């Protein structure tokens, strides 16, 4: 597996910001009442994450370590403000749907976390791939939760009513925590089984190689 594929898989799955690292929970819980809101928030964060990672990686040698956090915050806040302006101009419905959580992206742990943990230590292309993959991982997580909550809480999917049955609980904050917990449980279960099977496969191959070496000896 090449370097970029590994970074991508890490961002999307093994270091998924929502289900694994549990970062950016505020927006996750508040904006997953519908699938469209989840996608909207996820893609907005993806764009900001990609741009902030690229910029911070570009400036990583110029920014002294002592002022790196305020410098990152200024860069991220500028990007968030520009994205807000663009959304208000061209996607006003999405802007309205995200409400107060749009400016709050400035303090989203995922963006500052990736800036500090990855972009400040890696070259531009690697950082861009990491930003994109982490953002898409966040988008996938929010969309999954949005689909579950919208379907059960409103009986609709992407705004289209598909059943008359709904449980209001899933649209509430308590429902958000409940769905989030279930998603984390399933994600952990599935990812651990995959890792376990990968380890078993590696072990089998290792034993097979050792046996071959013994036979040859």
């Amino acid at each position: 597996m090449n370097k970029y594929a590994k970074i991508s898989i890490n961002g999307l799955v093994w270091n998924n910001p929502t289900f694994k690292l549990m970062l950016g929970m505020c927006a996750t819980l508040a904006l997953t009442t519908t699938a469209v809101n989840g996608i909207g928030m996820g893609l907005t964060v993806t764009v900001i994450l990609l741009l902030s990672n690229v910029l911070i990686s570009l400036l990583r040698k110029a920014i002294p370590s002592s002022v790196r956090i305020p410098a990152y915050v200024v860069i991220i806040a500028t990007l968030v403000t520009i994205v807000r302006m663009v959304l208000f101009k061209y996607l006003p419905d999405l802007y309205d749907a995200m409400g107060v959580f749009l400016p709050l992206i400035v303090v989203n742990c995922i963006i500052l976390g990736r800036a500090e943990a990855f972009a400040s230590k890696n070259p531009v292309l690697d950082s861009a791939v990491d930003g994109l993959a982490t953002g898409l991982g966040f988008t996938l997580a929010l969309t999954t939760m949005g689909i579950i909550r919208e379907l059960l809480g409103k009986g609709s999917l992407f705004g289209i009513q598909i059943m008359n049955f709904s449980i209001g609980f899933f649209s509430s904050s308590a429902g958000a925590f409940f769905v989030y917990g279930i998603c984390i449980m399933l994600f952990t279960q599935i990812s651990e089984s995959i890792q376990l099977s990968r380890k078993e496969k590696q072990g089998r191959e290792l034993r097979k190689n050792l046996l071959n070496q013994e036979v040859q000896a």
Partner: protein
Amino acid sequence: MTVKQFFKSAAFKALAVLLSITVVCGGVLAVANDLFYVSEEEVNLRSYSKLLDNDKVVDDKLLTEPYASGDGVVNKVALTEKGDYLVQATGDGGYKGSVTVWVLFGFENGKFKGIKKVQYASDEGETLMANLTSAYYQNFANHNEEVLAGGIFSVDSSEGICNVVTGTTKSSTAIANAVNSALGYVRAVILGQGDNPTPEQPKLYEKNVKDVNVKISGNTVTYTLTVKALGDPDNFDFKIAVTDGKIDSFEITKNGTTDSYLGAFGKVDFSTYMVGKTYAELSALIGKDGTEQIKTSYVESGSFNTLTTGASYSCIMTLIAGAYATGNYEAYLAEGSAPAHPVYYAENVKSATQEVDGNTVTYTLTVKALGDPDNFDFKIAVTDGKIDSFEITKNGTTDSYLDAFGKVDFSTYMVGKTYAELSALIGMDGTEKIKTSYVESGSFNTLTTGASYSCIMTLIAGAYATGNYDLYV
């Protein structure tokens, strides 16, 4: 540390880098702000396009200053090409602030048909707006029978047409208040019905009263209102009729007295006691709003000697209801009989915009087709009630009658004409039917052109401009 050492130090470098990043980011934001600026007009146009199907706004400056109505305020009123009215109103009583919505009111040939659409515009501090689905907003348009009968919206079915989302009651309250404000404006100003008019200053006892609904019939004003809780009792609801400044009938529709004082409060039969009372008598008992504090205890004021019941708060709240009804009587009555907007020939005019410059009003208007001709467009300037200049900017006469219509030079004929002269020719709107044929009416002898419909439409334009002059100047 010397100055030279400071400029070479890591601290200076850190500050310089941070400052540079901040300055560059500031510059980028300034450019972005210019590039992505969205004007208020553009925001309004977005709302219009979402709300209006195959229709467009022809005049969105019908309201020059905010109009307070009930627990809300009307911010903007626009007239559409189809004759519908689009009202933007802000309602109080939300979770942390207010909610602003657009309400589209349907009109057919000048007749009010009810609410067509309600759409969210903005809010202050609400956090659960996402719970309010399109079905909730659509529900406002599903009760037009009750709206036409004078109903208002509430989150409580006992107080009005119920429209609420459980768990988002406060935001629902603010939206209901906004819709009610918009309804109040339409009823009082556009329809001129006198329902829920908002009198100009002073509105007496406003702080103590909420959810006021008013109906005016002749010189009788009937109030349905709630007096807010004072002390221990809960809110009280009342229905009060006032004629010639005196209470005609007085009914407590919801008694908020605490159970232990019900007996004491029941000692006075208010439905009898209040009849015949005037504002002077009631304000003498509880204090005149605006000049004195409302007396909140009969023990302190000593004014209730004739009315001691032992349930002073309930008693004061009941008196406030009566004082509100009598004290605001003149103001409501005056507002109720105020002219609607616009008054004359509204049914014949499809769209109109006005520009006021000193005492000159310049109209750009379209008169709807009558008979065979197409719509006519005009530009008319009126000064001191007389036509200054008159221009037909689009002549809708059918081709075969163009010569006949051309016999009269209207741009000369109309100059100097007043509303009285023009309405005498075509019939005064509101009191007579518009005359649609000069042969029947015999009024056009001096103006016979052989293109009667075109002629009448042209006269209507002049009559509209002069008749409504006082409204706009």
